[in-house]
């Protein structure tokens, strides 16, 4: 069996990288004494996968991971024991037990929701949103293994709205197309006529399926 767990990562911990988080989670699992599974080979490591890596600098409100277990554990016990072992700025919020054959959360990903708070030029950015979205296409350059490639962000921005002084963005996160929030903010800054891309704080608030259902329920 395996556990699909939702966790949050806050505050200073936004500065750690994906591999750092992976290590921290594996060590927390080891401290917790939960019946985890190990990989084979000379340097066995705990099997664990995150639905989507969180970029450095980004907080996560409802991140999703999958933890294969070697013995049954109730979701309540899983949550209690892992939270005792985790650093305070990472919290497990919920967990769901599924069969081994259950599809991996990563394979069900379709979109992600972000809260973006500009640190500067907020008014200009927020005012530019309607015009920004009215464009037929939003050309940008995306980094890929083959170098920089052109991409049209417009169809990948499912929703972008102003909420108080913040932006709420619903962006594609899928093998067939992904809009990284920094690319969108760069394009928005440019559209708003800012000389340089605006700085902002960002939190990924939800991971969703292609049908915009919470990923952890898929």
């Amino acid at each position, binding site marked *: 069996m395996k556990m699909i767990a939702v966790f949050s990562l806050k505050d200073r911990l936004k*500065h*750690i990288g994906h591999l*750092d988080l992976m290590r921290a989670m594996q*060590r927390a699992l080891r*401290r917790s004494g939960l019946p985890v599974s190990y990989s084979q080979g000379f*340097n066995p490591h705990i099997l664990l996968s995150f639905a989507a890596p969180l970029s450095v*600098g980004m907080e996560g409100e409802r991140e999703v991971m999958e933890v294969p277990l070697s013995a049954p554990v109730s979701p309540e016990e899983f949550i209690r024991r892992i939270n005792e*072992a985790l650093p305070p*700025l990472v919290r497990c919020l919920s967990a769901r037990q599924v069969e081994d054959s259950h599809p991996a959360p990563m394979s069900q990903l379709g979109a992600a929701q972000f809260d973006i708070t500009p*640190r500067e030029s907020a008014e200009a950015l927020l005012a530019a949103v309607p015009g920004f979205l009215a464009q037929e296409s939003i050309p940008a350059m995306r980094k890929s293994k083959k170098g920089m490639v052109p991409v049209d962000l417009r169809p990948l921005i499912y929703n972008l709205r102003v909420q108080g002084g913040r932006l709420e963005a619903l962006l594609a996160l899928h093998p067939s197309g992904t809009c990284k929030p920094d690319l969108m903010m760069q394009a928005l800054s440019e559209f708003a006529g800012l000389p340089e891309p605006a700085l902002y704080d960002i939190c990924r608030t939800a991971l969703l399926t292609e049908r915009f259902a919470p990923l952890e329920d898929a």
Partner: protein
Amino acid sequence: MDTQKLAAIDRLLSRVEKPARYIGGEMNTQVKPRGKDTAAFAFCFPDTYEVAMSHLGLKILYDILNRQPDMLCERVMMPWHDMADHLRREDIPLFSLETRTALHEFDLVGFTLQYEMSFTNILEMLSLGGIALRGDERGQDEPIVIAGGPCAFNPEPLSAFIDCFVIGDAETAIVEVTRCVKQLRLAGAARVDILYALLQIEGCYVPSLYEASYHEDGTLQGFAPLREGVPATVRKRIEMDLDEASFPESIPVPYTEIVHDRISLEIMRGCTRGCRFCQAGMLYRPVRERSPEKLLALAEKLVAATGYEEISLSSLSSGDYGQLAELVRGLMDRFAKDRVSVSLPSMRVDSLVKQTLEETRAVKKSGLTLAPEAATQRLRDVINKGVTEQDILRSVSDAFQSGWSNVKLYFMIGLPTETDEDLEAFADLARLVTGAYFAVPREQRAPGLRVTMSAATFVPKPLTPFQWAAQDALPEIKRKQALLRTALRPVKGVQFNWHEPELSVLEACVARGDRRMGEVIYAAWQRGCRLDGWREHFKFDVWLEAFAACGLDPDFYAARERGERELLPWDFIDAGVTRQYLWLERERAMAGTVTPDCRDGCEGCGLRRFDGVCVP
């Protein structure tokens, strides 16, 4: 720090390389409330986070200070150049990881001196931390700046910048020093009176209470206390019983990858082998072991507290630990099921036990590292590395037969009495090692032979039998490196590594520097030198400018043979081993005479003058 600056730090972190270096909040770090009576200690490591967090001493002292109800200890490390520049530009003081408290707000600021080439980082950290660089410029409310660690055994190059050095084992001393400083600060004592009080604590050296004078030729003429009641010699502190000495049961677990990301269990302190180039071997005498029972109990707690997957047994010469096989077996039995591996670094070639090798391989596969130091028996006898060619070949054969194909061999070049014949012998030894691999039947050996031979440049260090020796001058070092490259190129399966010789020359200057060397360090820092230990930041030409500006010659410090009677800047430090014994060892070195391990009989190094030391 005010909220505006705290917010600025947060913004900075999004702009610097590896921000995880600066965030704190790692598992098992301590955030203690600071009351008026709390002694606040900033443990400063003058290198980057990755190096600092790999250092066992930091974890031991961090734990000890935070266990005291009336003390707190927070960590401060050398920021990378991008962060340092941002801090300076935005006028944000260097801060502690735990609570982002400015360095100058602590009661004590303590540096650990592990490496001479980190000394400019100390100036950079003091400067960034808002603390006057020189002890005599510090105001009443500024922290007392202390320093310890192996490089404190020649404290003179830093004497202008450090208020008080703590010489020797610090477990007990650091608590005494911290309590003394805090009590006197609370009582409103003047700085000079605090320093005078520190002097009463064994192992403490207060440089401002001494004066040095020089001969015309630049050598030291005199060194003496400035006032009555100041001792003429400073004796190092020793923790006699390691089972009694404090060792952490829980250590911080970094998020970001560090150099040694594992549990380090100190099984033993000190080494009796008596290698004549080795400063640690002289400084950390006598040999003291932790009991296997104590170590197993510590390992149990540390694994539970950290979730680490590897335990490394640490000491100067782990193969000499009395009950190594029992200890390794005990750790294996206990932890194999939890997939915790055990590794044994710094094994001497002659102490390698085939069985131990096989046991460690049972859990994790790692390479084999040996340090023959010199390629001929003659030169190994000179340096008292009691290892024969047979020992080396037996060790690598065992390793190859046990399934290793990756062997690292460490050497030094420029050792006293070295000739080109000693260097040419590298290739012969390399061929013997690769031959040992090919002697193992193909189906039994692991594929992919890789023999790495690294040659460091010999740096004569204080308080060793070679403290009087000249280092090779730079062109000679370069010639020898080229000779080795040529000799080793045709040997199949061998890779040759060497170090930047300029760095070793400077290390030699600073290691045996006097008070005037402090001015060179200052001048180099003023000209922008910092992070010198990092190749991309090391500016040899700027250091040479700094020497010139101070009217000093690097060759005087590095490449000069000292006479038997010359007063050495660190002669007032009593490190246990006497100057007479060191000279005797030097004479034996020149004669190529070996001194046996003193476990088999006292050689009279001087440690027995200390109460309770080396008594069976």
